[in-house]
């Protein structure tokens, strides 16, 4: 595996968004739902969106390429470049926007603000307990390790609160 050590270290709350959920299904089944295109198309993307296209090349350096159709009919293509794959417990990929041919494109291509990061690292871990599967997803904030300062828990939440306060004032 050629992923950099820093990128695959245990994720912490000060380095990004963490979403955890326990699914009532065995780990092998949940892992397949994340790595088989026909299954990804059934659940990937938020409520109201659909995923009409998805391919998966499940190997380090391979990618999954998908089309997310928004409720207004617009298509947003995305690419996940696999950095690390441990069946059935761990997936690490670099997330970016793409075109229909699977080439990465800048976020501005989809009308995102100029400040939107071009790529970010996503780490998904799958733990089995009593036939259920705990999935922990870490979506890293796009800051290199050298740029990170001290560790403090949950600062993304603090940030959201602060921005909400500012909007009110």
């Amino acid at each position: 595996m050629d992923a950099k050590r820093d990128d695959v270290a245990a994720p912490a709350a000060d380095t990004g968004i963490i979403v955890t959920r326990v699914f009532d299904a065995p780990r092998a089944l949940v892992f397949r739902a994340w790595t088989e295109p026909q299954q990804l198309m059934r659940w990937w993307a938020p409520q109201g969106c659909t995923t009409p296209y998805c391919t998966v090349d499940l190997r380090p350096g391979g990618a999954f390429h998908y089309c997310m159709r928004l409720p207004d009919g617009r298509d947003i293509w995305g690419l996940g470049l696999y950095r690390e794959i441990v069946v059935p417990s761990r997936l690490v990929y670099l997330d970016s926007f793409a075109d229909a041919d699977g080439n990465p494109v800048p976020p501005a291509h989809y009308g995102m603000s100029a400040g939107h990061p071009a790529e970010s690292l996503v780490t998904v871990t799958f733990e089995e307990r009593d036939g259920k599967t705990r999935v922990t997803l870490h979506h890293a904030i796009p800051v290199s390790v050298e740029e990170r300062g001290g560790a403090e828990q949950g600062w993304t939440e603090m940030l959201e609160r602060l921005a909400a306060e500012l909007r009110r004032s």
Partner: protein
Amino acid sequence: MSSDRLSATFAALADPTRRAILARLASGETSVTELAEPFEMSLPAISKHLKVLERAGLITRGREAQWRPCRLRAGPLEDVADWVAHYRRFWEQSFDRLDDYLHALQGKEKKHGRKKR
């Protein structure tokens, strides 16, 4: 690269002292001396943090010679908060759908056996 601006904002926010400074400024503009008080830090150390925040566009500093009050700027903070909120929503809603899908999948399995792909 166009992603530099948000990265600079995140980098500026990655430090707990700088976040504390921003939280303090959320309740109103203030002087550097006042800002430095709760931190047990030298003025030059605080000034260094303020420079990082200023470069990231998170604060502005008045030009009034003596006082130079620091003020919070909402724009970049809202950009990063939007980025965080966008992905949090993406994952939470996708997880809801995955939960529904896995239930349906296993329900189907019990009745019809596992359907390959």
